[in-house]
């Protein structure tokens, strides 16, 4: 084993990955699929959605695999009844927090939240739903921000800051009141920093940021961050 390499087991598969690798990355590199919502390749990991939780042998806690680095001898379980229950629960919390109505949503059929709910078998929400009615910002020429569909994954905030480099988008407030804002909570149409690059719409996993008149399936490009980075680092 070469220096700086860590040896561990993921779902009983023995894997060797470089030191400092996150569990999620290690799993992906070895063909193990872990569900995610806030993760986008090329952006800093956020650990907010709790979909990528895994069990590590010897610990009663669950770990977010996108922000937990590997260490030698780890035995990781990515699929179990317990994990499935926790993932379903976390997904229901997300669904209950805002007004998610697939049938009238621009993201219908190309929504990552919807897809994951289908895969995990979440067909009901057992918690009382919030049915928010936050204002929809459509003051921009073509970008629309509908906070009622936002799952606070911060992909847009991160892509805007780390890839486009302008940090137009950010968050305000906490908990269920937390919302994506433009500049200092201004109307998008009045933003002085936004370059209208539409990367936020490309990475949005749901229908919270979209291009007016376009179905999300036309806009969506989850590889945009990876693509820009590969060009930048040529």
């Amino acid at each position, binding site marked *: 084993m070469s220096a700086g390499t860590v040896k561990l087991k993921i779902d009983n598969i023995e894997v060797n990955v470089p030191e400092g690798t996150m569990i999620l990355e290690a799993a992906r590199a070895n063909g193990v699929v872990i569900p995610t919502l806030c993760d986008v390749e090329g952006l800093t990991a956020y650990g907010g959605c709790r979909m990528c939780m895994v069990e590590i042998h010897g610990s009663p806690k669950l770990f977010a695999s996108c922000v937990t680095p590997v260490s030698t001898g780890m035995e990781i379980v990515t699929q179990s009844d317990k994990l499935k229950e926790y993932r379903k629960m976390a997904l229901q919390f997300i669904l209950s927090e805002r007004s998610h109505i697939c*049938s009238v949503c621009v993201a219908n059929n190309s929504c990552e939240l919807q897809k994951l709910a289908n895969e995990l078998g979440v067909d009901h929400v057992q918690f009382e739903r919030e049915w928010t*009615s936050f204002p929809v910002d*459509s003051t921009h020429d073509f970008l629309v921000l509908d906070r009622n569909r936002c799952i606070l994954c911060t992909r847009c905030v991160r892509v805007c800051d780390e890839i486009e480099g302008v940090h137009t988008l950010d968050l305000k407030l906490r908990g269920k009141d937390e919302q994506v804002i433009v500049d200092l909570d201004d109307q998008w149409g009045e933003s002085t920093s936004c370059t209208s690059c539409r990367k936020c719409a490309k990475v949005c996993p749901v229908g919270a940021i979209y291009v007016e*008149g376009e179905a999300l399936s036309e806009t969506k490009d989850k590889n945009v961050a990876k693509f820009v980075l590969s060009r930048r680092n040529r």
Partner: protein
Amino acid sequence: MKEIVINPITRIEGHAKVTIQLNEDLSVKEARFQVTDFRGFEKFTEGRPFYEMPSITSRACGICPVSHLLASAKACDEIVAVKVPPTAVKLRRLIHMGQMIQSHALNFFHLSAPDFLLGMDADPAIRNVFGLIEKNPDLARQGIRLRRFGQEIIENVAGKKIHSSEWIVPGGAKWPLTRERADYLKSNLPEALTTTLQTIGMFKTWFSGCTEEVATYGDFPSYYLGLVTADGGLEMYDGNIRVMDNDGNIVADQLDPDKYLDYIGEAVEPYSYMKFPYYKPLGYPAGMYRVGPLARLNISSHCGTPLADEELKEFKKLGKNGVVQSTFHYHYARLIETLFCIEKAKELLEDPEILSEHVCRKVYANNNEGVGVAEAPRGTLIHHYKVDDNGMITKVNMIIATEHNNLAYNKAVTQVAQKYVKAETLTEGMLNRVESVIRSFDPCLSCATHAVGQMPLDIQLLDSQGKQLDRKTR
């Protein structure tokens, strides 16, 4: 004063009940048709982007979502202030024909025909579409296939049978019609036409033998309202409003649908969630008018397709001055309209322009207000939106086809109750005749209350003191 309540009413779309008030001598004083659900589309759409409206409002109904899509898209067309490409207009008209065919077939074969073919007094356990399948399997099969044909028009043009809201967009349509799909639909036209013609023949023979029902099923004078073409013909998608009185006089013609508020008022009664629209110049409740198939054929001088025009001539012979006032004849009118829609669908499918790929333009909100009016299967449907400068909805008013007939429902239900209810208890035959007159209108209460749910029946019979004598529910 005594009272009978029929709750819930069956084989209609939505929730309703009927309350029958009796006099001291147990004769019927008055009957009220009450809609018991509330949904609130006009309120909860406030703050949403205008272009979501076709998608949201079409969810008011699973039977006639296309009508909502069209009225809503037309209101949005006015907000974006563009001329819709001709092919998109033709495609919209085509799915509208599909919708009329499927909805009319649903009412006739699935909901109403069991009354005609199995008898008004037949056991409710068999007096339904399954009983029909047993008694007359060929007719039932044809009816189901006719409805499917209507649904297939919608699916082949707009992608889905129900709530095809991704296809219809403000300013046009999302994608064109392919030649294969058009050819497939064309190949199914002859069967649909044969079924409809046979059914019309059969139905005419049947109703010529039941003059009593014809005379008592809401046979009363009223005004009639609907869209007509520029030359006074049958129109379902565009056109202007015509109002006709019961003697066949056109009291108002080519009224601008955008200005509907000038001539249509909406009253509210404490006993129903369904509003009571009325013709403003006559006031409330005198301004009672009817909409839907019967009204459309009454106000139209012609249909504009050969077979339907022939049939329309016969229809007009049923009334004085060409005005047919028995609610029972909604059924006949519905069949004639089905014929018209099949002929019209053929015309549209044979038009080379229907295959053009120019169906959509990129659009933005340019106006702060838009009104869209179309003829739904059940009558004139109005969507009226106001938006702010960013296209966010600030106010919505919807007047649904079924609502226009609200005053007429009460009149019709009272008439039938006065004829058939004569006791302190309700018999199955009484119950069904009251329901049946409601079914003639083909009400869609889920739309009309913009309300949720299925449509069972609840009839209450109250005495002159308001005490409940009998109550039948299903």
